């Protein structure tokens, strides 16, 4: 188990800044997921940790040791790629054993480590098969096995499930997480898929355009997004953002949305232009609700449904039970769960501190 520290890590490709002055600590044994849209810098960050890319400036420390200038192979880190490259003419056993043979590990030690990894990944019955004929999921397990046997200081994974189909991805998510629980090895995992990230991460790091926007446990990021971008990027459907009438002052517990009074959690700062943020599951369809609107769309998802409601303050999405019967065009009232309302400074897009947001990190 190792701790990875990134200090002022910066990477420029020509005029393009891929990663901007990033500070980040990956605690020993943590499963940390870097999440963001394509081009956000998550893969570049991972490649710098691996030693496949040299930073323009900044340092990388593993267990306190500065490894910034070390070659990839000297860092004792295992990298699992999206496109797993196995040797098709070799058996599963030899594929998994390959890195150990290269390091001249004694033969009996190789055998016991390969067996242990295969048991953990439940591919013992495949050990003597060639990898060429295996299914995508089994190939991915073999690739993981090859990383595990090395007993590295940390695992780095770049969208390792990206090529698998949706049902199977979900299953592999659970397996990877179980594997992590068993090994408790420090893991940095890159994905653009928020459900994957949410299901696996101890800590989530949300990136965009080279910047880390927020890091912390998934539930904290989900409930208290630090910026409008994070609230939009995480959540399906995303968080609602509605413009508030006029300025907001510290101590305010009520705002107006196009004239409709809405109770909010007490605000601890002030801003000229403000957005109210609320998750769809905290919007209540309520005939006495202050904000009036009309249903313009209904998405049925089996276990629940999502209504899209047009109001004078903007479009609002509300999550409702599968039994809620509202036809398109129906007039509705909306209220918001007061303890779940968030206020954002429209000028900066940043979350304004409030009575309930004391624990939020920037």
């Amino acid at each position: 188990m190792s701790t990875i520290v990134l200090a002022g890590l910066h990477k420029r490709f020509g005029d393009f800044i891929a990663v901007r002055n990033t500070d980040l600590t990956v605690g020993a044994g943590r499963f940390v997921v870097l999440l963001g849209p394509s081009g956000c810098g998550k893969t570049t960050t991972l490649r710098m940790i691996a030693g496949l890319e040299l930073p323009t400036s900044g340092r990388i420390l593993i267990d306190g040791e500065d490894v910034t200038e070390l070659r990839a192979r000297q860092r004792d880190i295992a990298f699992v790629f999206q496109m797993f490259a196995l040797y098709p003419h070799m058996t599963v056993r030899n594929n998994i054993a390959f890195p150990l043979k290269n390091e001249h590990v004694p033969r009996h030690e190789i055998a016991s480590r390969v067996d242990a990894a295969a048991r953990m990944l439940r591919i013992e019955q495949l050990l003597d098969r060639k990898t060429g004929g295996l299914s995508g999921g089994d190939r991915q397990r073999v690739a993981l096995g090859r990383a595990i046997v090395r007993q590295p200081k940390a695992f780095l994974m770049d969208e390792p499930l990206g090529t698998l189909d949706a049902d199977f991805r979900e299953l592999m998510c659970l397996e990877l997480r179980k594997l992590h629980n068993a090994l408790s090895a420090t893991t940095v995992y890159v994905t653009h898929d928020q459900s994957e990230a949410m299901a696996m991460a101890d800590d989530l790091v949300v990136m965009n355009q080279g910047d880390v926007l927020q890091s912390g446990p998934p539930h904290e990021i989900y409930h208290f997004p630090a910026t409008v971008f994070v609230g939009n990027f995480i959540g399906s459907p995303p968080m609602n953002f509605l413009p508030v009438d006029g300025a907001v002052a510290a101590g305010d517990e009520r705002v107006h949305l196009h004239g409709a009074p809405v109770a909010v959690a007490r605000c601890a700062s002030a801003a000229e232009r403000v957005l109210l943020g609320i998750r769809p599951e905290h919007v209540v369809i309520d005939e006495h609700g202050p904000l009036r609107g009309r249903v313009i769309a209904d998405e049925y998802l089996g276990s629940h449904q999502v209504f899209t409601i047009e109001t004078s303050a903007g479009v609002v999405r509300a999550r409702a039970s599968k039994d809620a019967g509202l036809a398109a065009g129906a007039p509705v009232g909306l209220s918001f769960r007061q303890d779940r309302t968030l206020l954002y400074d429209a000028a900066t897009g940043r979350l304004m501190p409030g009575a309930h947001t004391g624990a939020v990190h920037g």
Partner: protein
Amino acid sequence: MAEIELRNVSKHFGAIVAVDDLSLDVKDGEFVVVLGPSGAGKTTTLRLIAGLEGPDSGDVLIDGEIATRVHPSERDVAFIFQQYSLYPHLSVFDNLAFPLRSPRRRQSEADVRARVEAVAAMLHMEAKLANMATHLSGGEMQRVAIGRALVREPRVFLMDEPLSSLDAKLREELRVELKRLHRTIGATIVYVTHDQVEATTLADRIAILEHGRLVQIGTPREVYGNPACLSAARRLGSPPINLLPPAFFDASAVPADTAVVAIRPEDVVLDAADRKSPLSLKVLEYSPLRHLLILDRDGTPVVATTSIERNFSPGQSVGVSLPARSLLYFRADGRRIPT
């Protein structure tokens, strides 16, 4: 626009039966989603409608006419694939205009321009018309591929997992757009997917296929709420439907021949802490983000979804009710027992 009918269609590939005596009708302007696991015959069904495959037996009818002997190019259907194939050396405009410039169409360049611009507006691609196709994001490329089908104003759209190669965010965006598009143009669409969110949100009706056979067809609410058999019940639902042994229940309350009792996770009722419950289960896992509670009784997991934000910790006991009106009963062979 058009109606489509499959009458007892079968298709073999060697010893493999891809489509087995399949009968299906798609009404004019209807959006039918064909859902099933890989190998269920979904894509073959689509290819049979398109005329890319011929049936071994049975008939494919388009607007009441037997299309089986009509060449694909004469069927006036547009096929959209998972892997959008655009002409990389052409601009977005020229990619969209391509089908209209076919010599058979003999459309004036002014008509072509007007049509391409109208479709680009529909897809919010006006600003990208001059871009080369290779300089687009994945979502934009798929939009152009859909646009190329739209310009032709075909009678039928056949779509084979058109969103599955896109990432989650884009998939959601394009899903909403497809639905809007269907409302605007009122086209007949047959859409193949294994994604249940696409199925329940897009479909007028869902057709569930398994082993080349039609298992059930109905509105999303019918198929989800009133599944005809166990495999249909398991095909929809995230998290999946709970399958419980009859021994969980009072024997007198369970119909004869019941092998499995099923209940949707959102129908499991979590009782208030102070109430005496018929069933007390141990918490295995709680995810407030996914509104998900995994419980356990004697090694059988019971999954509940709940919008209540309560603090559950692993190991604690929770009182649970499984209301009789939410229970579905199945025989050992998977058939539903009516109640």
